[in-house]
């Protein structure tokens, strides 16, 4: 059971951003004339940040939670289009927030598997969930009229710092299931960017098993602190219940009747993408994250790995 949960809920993002160093080795052709100049690093127009912490967006107080208005309307308990699921309010007062998954968090914790979130974080630190956000076409780290955001996936065991978290500036292989999904183009305003909607299939590995989490109509937002870190990250969207069921079924091969448990927990929680039969086929969800700078290995190194 525990092995499946991070996979179920790890909706996230990722990107690459290789600030490839300029070539040219100034091998010792130095002269004694000491006219030193102040060199200015060319601005790296592409940046990659690997998500180093991922947490559930929790309701606090009840009814208030981080997330997005994914369906563009404020739903009430009698709204048939959302299968009777009432929307929430964001901490800054925005109504219509779709995050039904936030209702599951206390249930999961009450069920005695409160380490669920820790397990998700452990998956980040062991390389099972190596998701990245990539910024392309950057002209500034604070304000830019158009920046493309992509979600990428890495592969490999991260180096951890003395604080136990993924180290800044390290290099990863590109995941063979890298979604390379363009989340969209957006404006960078005071270091914050918000893009979407986008559909993405997120590759996740838990206890050696590979899963795919399907997110539809997703959105992502984060703030660039400096050239090494991002924070205030929020990613969310509609998780297809079919992908959740598939994950549960795969996990059940090792984890007993987990598929039944998951079905009972999520089967009636859908609030988005109602089908012809009136069933809501997606579960709205949102996770918060922070990230640190990262690189990808050159393609030839990764090719051998894959």
């Amino acid at each position, binding site marked *: 059971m525990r092995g499946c949960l991070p996979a179920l809920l790890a909706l996230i993002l990722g990107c690459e951003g290789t600030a490839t*160093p300029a070539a*040219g080795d100034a091998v010792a*052709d130095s002269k004694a004339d000491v006219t030193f100049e102040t060199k200015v690093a060319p601005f790296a127009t592409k940046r990659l940040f690997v998500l180093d912490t991922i947490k559930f967006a929790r309701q606090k107080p009840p009814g208030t939670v981080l997330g997005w208005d994914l369906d563009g309307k404020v739903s009430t308990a009698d709204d048939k289009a959302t299968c009777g699921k009432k929307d929430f309010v964001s901490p800054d007062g925005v109504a219509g927030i779709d995050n039904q998954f936030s209702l599951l968090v206390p249930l999961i914790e009450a069920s005695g598997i409160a380490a669920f979130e820790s397990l998700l974080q452990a998956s980040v630190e062991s390389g099972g969930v190596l998701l990245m956000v990539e910024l392309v076409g950057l002209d500034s780290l604070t304000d830019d009229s158009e920046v493309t955001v992509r979600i990428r996936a890495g592969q490999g065991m991260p180096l951890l710092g003395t604080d136990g978290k993924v180290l800044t500036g390290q290099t990863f292989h590109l995941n063979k299931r890298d979604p390379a999904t363009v989340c969209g183009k957006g404006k960078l305003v005071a270091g914050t960017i918000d893009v979407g909607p986008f559909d993405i299939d997120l590759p996740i590995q838990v206890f050696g098993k590979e899963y795919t989490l399907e997110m539809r109509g997703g959105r992502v937002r984060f703030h660039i602190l400096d050239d090494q870190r991002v924070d205030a990250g929020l990613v969310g969207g509609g998780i297809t219940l079919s992908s959740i069921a598939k994950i549960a079924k795969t996990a059940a091969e090792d984890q007993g009747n987990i598929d039944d448990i998951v079905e009972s927990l999520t089967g009636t929680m859908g609030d988005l993408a109602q089908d012809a039969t009136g069933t809501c086929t997606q579960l709205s969800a949102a996770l918060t994250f922070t990230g640190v700078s990262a690189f990808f290995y050159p393609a030839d190194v990764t090719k051998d790995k894959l």
Partner: protein
Amino acid sequence: MTRAYATMVLLLTLAACDEQTPPTTTPAPAKLQPAPAAMPRLTRAQYDNTVRDVLGDDLSLPPTLEPDVAFEHLLTVGSAVAKVSPRGVELYEEAARSLAAQVAGKPERLVKLLTCKPTGPQDSACLSQFVGEVGDRLWRRALSPTEVATIAATATKAATALGTFEQAAEYALVQLLQAPGFLYRTEHGQADPAHAGCKRLTAYELASRLAYFLWAGPPDAALLATAKDGSLHDPKVRAAQVDRLLADPKLRRSVRNWAGEWLQLHDVAKLNKDPKVYKHFSSDLGPSAREETLRLVEHLAIDTDSDFRAFITTRTTFVDRRLAAIYEVPADNEKGHAAVTLPDYGERRGFLGQVSFLGHAAHPVSSSPTLRGAFVRRFLLCDFVPDPPANLNTAIPEPSPEAKTLRQRLTAHMNVPGCSSCHKTLDPIGFAFERFDGIGRYRSKDNGEPIDTTGDLDGVPFGDLDSLAVVLADSAKFRRCVTQKLYGYGVARPTVAGEKSQVDALAATFGKNGMKVNALMRDIALSDGFSRLACAGAK
């Protein structure tokens, strides 16, 4: 050989060593005045390489031996002045017994060393042959018939008591491996026909010095053969042997050994940082940083035979994932070190941009312009830098509104009487590195303030590490310092004032020839100072 006997021999030898500590303060003469004879003890690296080269490279080497000590910052030079403690003597004996048992206890090892087939436990002819042949390699000279007979007789007694030839061989090896002839590079010298009243190394001593300089290990059979027939004193034969040694893969281990000693990489391997301050620290960072520096030296000195100024200025380095993360560059290799090119717009370049320097010459919780400046002066410019007096308060002022950055605090400290004389020569160099924290990561601010990295090196201004590297690499002092460190490593004893002209000449040639380390090693190995000993009446 009993333990008491071995101990006595060692101690007597050491007592003799003491008297040979050469002077270092006499005025520099115009012509070479060679140093007196010395008797360097094998350093730990030389000991290990000798055992491996002669007895087999699969032996388990002793975990502990008498520690090496540095003199003129080099362990190899320290080996000529170091003493051996009583415990050290015991350790050498334990090591000899362990190594001998490993050789004799495994038939395939012993058979490789035997050129005769023993007919029985007391085959004294075969045993003497074994002692003579292996002894020649271990002692790096031909054993006299008396020496062979003495060792073989003791070993034969063991065979009589214990019943096997293997045990005879084992006892012979025990004697060979704890004898001064093995543990020391004895250099008594002989009359130098080219310089009346002076001495030169014997051919065997010269062969050993060449081999330990260029291979960090013992002479091979071919080199010993030129010593045996005396032809090694012929300049052409000597040059041919030097070229042969330089072309051998074992050159690599000596270059690494030299660089490790020169740049204090044994300390880098033990790098320790406060994990609360430096998240990138881990116990494997020190060894990784050490390897990075060694790879760079190998790359320049052997693989590409490059101008060695690049050691200070190159943008090429060799990183693993952890170092790449510290340098904020993409790694190029999942496991181990691989070459990467640092951005040419950045300050980080050469050895001074490596963790081996930036992390080593720093405090566990902070950077240190003083330690970094002192390192540059001591090891790259060969300046004398005294340690601070024991009773001096070296604490620098805490951050204040007036002095937030370390540079500002140190500048205030420079005005303290008793501190200023040293700090004024060290800190202006060390400020160049202040945009790198105590583990070597780039930072743009110190305590929230912009960092001033300008300074001067003996009056030549620089803007930061990037431009300091150019100034330093081109300085005559750096060129001479590299020469001095390599020469000292080669002769394996303190350099005396009478050799100044020799080192100066080598440094000048080094510069003219494009600062190729390989060529410098050749010049040193063929120099007069390398093979000559002090003349009669020399102080």
